[in-house]
């Protein structure tokens, strides 16, 4: 017998009342002149904050921004959305990570009518893949604002020193060049990348696709123990184990791996292009003058990096300030801001901006070329597309850390596949 939980609703009401009581000031109701926007720490957010006065002037609204780290943002959504709190209006969220969960729980307002009735917003301008990730059961529940493709970061000086004239075009070449450079430069790792079980999954995905594998096949069956997947796990883990940093940990996310690369301690690094400013900003990087970018090296199935919408804007369905929330999104995800963001180095989801030479002019030339290859060959996901993504990432990420620590990647992939299939079956119930 399934039933709506009365206690659940009362808890939500109690919590919402407490939260509302704590909020004070402008309650954010229909007549409110304040839009409460929750954003993640990101270059996009820094750019949008600088442009906010312009929006506030033209709209007459006040924007109240809450800016949080990725994990804190996610936790806050969990608590507030579960409680049915109305003190969030606009939410920056990850369509591939929590989009399905939020949409299924009806946390995200349906924006279809608003989007379609605004011809200037031009919804058709958004790339199809990213839009698909923010559409749930034919309803548009979010607008993608940041896209990412995986590219190869490398050190030009180290390549030259070891006699290489060009960055690797294949994964075999990557391994050979990493080994040679490591041997020629004691204390410098040949390759670095994310190693944390869940964190590594997104970057490992491009290796998986390029070996011809995927997380799930077209019939929805788990495929992380196919021959291609086993090869990909063994390759990624082996490359880090054999040519990674000397005291490699299995907890590295992008910040730790990026730090090793930008401190000059590694020759090659595969990562999202949206983070490139960390390597080219003299205040953050010691390798500004020698960093180069290349398309993701080809595996047996070719070069197949992911090409995904990493962040989107949505409206809290419990918000009583939806009109103003939409006004903010109209502006922040509009053509003008999209161009400004991409010019400032944040890849967006609008086709017109990619087609506009000004949209790619500010990128390093080699990065722009790599981006073109990635968007042409890219795969639209970088993690299993399920509701409980965090749990799925842990399951399919286990063979990565097992391979890094020298365990048998193939048998670990078999175990992970069985667990992942059970997970998929449970979720399908």
């Amino acid at each position, binding site marked *: 017998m399934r039933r709506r939980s009365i206690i659940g609703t009362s808890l*939500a009401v109690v919590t919402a009342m407490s939260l509302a009581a704590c909020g004070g000031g402008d309650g954010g109701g229909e007549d409110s002149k304040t839009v409460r926007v929750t954003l993640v720490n990101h270059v996009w957010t820094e750019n949008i904050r600088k442009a906010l006065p312009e929006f506030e002037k033209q709209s007459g609204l006040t924007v109240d921004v809450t800016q949080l780290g990725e994990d804190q943002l996610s936790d806050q959504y969990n608590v507030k959305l579960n409680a049915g709190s109305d003190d969030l209006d606009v939410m920056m969220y990850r369509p591939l990570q929590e989009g399905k*969960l939020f949409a299924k729980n009806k946390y995200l307002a349906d924006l279809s009518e608003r989007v379609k009735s605004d011809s200037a917003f031009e919804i058709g301008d958004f790339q199809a893949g990213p839009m698909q990730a923010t559409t749930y059961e034919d309803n548009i529940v979010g607008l993608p604002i940041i896209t990412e493709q995986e590219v190869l970061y490398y050190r030009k000086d180290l390549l030259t020193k070891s006699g290489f004239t060009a960055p690797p075009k294949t994964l075999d070449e990557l391994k050979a060049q990493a080994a040679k450079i490591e041997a020629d430069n004691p204390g410098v790792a040949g390759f670095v990348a994310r190693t944390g*079980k869940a964190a590594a999954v997104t970057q490992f995905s491009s290796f998986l696709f390029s070996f011809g594998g995927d997380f799930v096949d077209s019939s929805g069956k788990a495929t992380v123990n196919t021959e291609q997947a086993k090869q990909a796990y063994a390759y990624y883990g082996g490359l880090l184990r054999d040519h990674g940093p000397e005291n490699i940990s299995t907890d590295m996310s992008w910040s730790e791996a990026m730090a090793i690369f930008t401190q000059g301690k590694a020759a090659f690094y595969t990562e999202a292009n949206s983070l490139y400013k960390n390597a080219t900003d003299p205040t953050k990087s010691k390798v500004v003058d020698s960093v180069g970018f290349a398309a993701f090296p080809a595996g047996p199935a070719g070069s197949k990096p992911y090409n995904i919408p990493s962040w989107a804007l949505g409206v809290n369905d419990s918000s009583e300030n939806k009109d103003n929330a939409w006004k903010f999104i109209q502006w922040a995800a509009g053509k003008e801001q999209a161009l400004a963001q991409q010019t400032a180095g944040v890849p967006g989801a609008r086709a017109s901006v990619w087609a506009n030479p000004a949209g790619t002019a500010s990128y390093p030339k080699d990065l722009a070329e790599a981006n073109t290859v990635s968007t042409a060959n890219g795969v639209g996901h970088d993690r299993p597309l399920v509701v409980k993504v965090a749990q799925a990432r842990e399951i399919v990420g286990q063979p990565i850390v097992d391979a890094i620590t020298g365990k048998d990647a193939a048998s670990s992939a078999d175990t992970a596949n069985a667990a992942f299939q059970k997970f998929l079956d449970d979720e399908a119930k």
Partner: protein
Amino acid sequence: MSRWANEHRKWLFAAPAMAFVAVLIIFPVAWTGYLSLTDAEGSVRAESEFIGFQNYLDVLTDTDRFWPAVWRTVLFTGVVLLFEVVLGMAIALLLWRPFRGEKWVRVAILLPLVATPVAVGMMWRLIFDPNIGMANQLLGWIGIGPQPWLAGQHSALPTTMFIDIWQWTPMVVLILLAGLTSLSDEPQEAARIDGASSWQRFRHVTLPLLMPTVIVAILLRGIDALKTFDILYATKGRGGGSFHEVETLNVYAYGLSFDYNDYGVSSTVLIIFFLIIIGVMWALTYRKKGLGR
């Protein structure tokens, strides 16, 4: 005052406190207990089914995550308590008698206590970084090779224990020092006249007299150590590391709620955890009462 109010004034005065307890203690525990009997997942507002004790059955037979987490919780608590009480006792005994510069030493010892655990975790994470951390650099100067510290699958838990001991031993020192200074001098004098050595005086006079205070210290620190979260989360992140190497019950329950959105299972783990803490508290207070007789 009306007659009714006069007759019921004890309840009227107690009402705010009772409301506080009801809203902030009884309701959350009862709500968690209810959730633990359902298959709530995804959202606590979503429809859920009452499934009786199925979650308890699943959790108690889970040898993959739950029992290792219980073992780590017990191990972590036991080891840090042992070190903190022994070290705390040693330091308290040293500080017991006045000496020159005593104030400075006390301030220095209390410093770790006033820092936020998350900040402490992040600070030690930097120090123990296997590649650029200060700990390995120091080891290098004395000719010892780099250690994995928090990065190692088997060294992470002992390293987090070290951090906890570093931060919380001062609290034990404070409690024991308060106990020591309240002890009467006569039994010590009598033992000294009888020719007892320092060790004999400690073993047969000071320790038995101090035992109720020691139990209080164990009780307070024990409960705190059992539910340690911030240091583990700040040093190893979600899931207690890629191999769940520092995943205690608290970290596990957090992950079930915030990563997996499995509110039913998470509530079950929390209720079991709650019962464990109640059990430990009961055992320790029972022991303390026994000593008091």
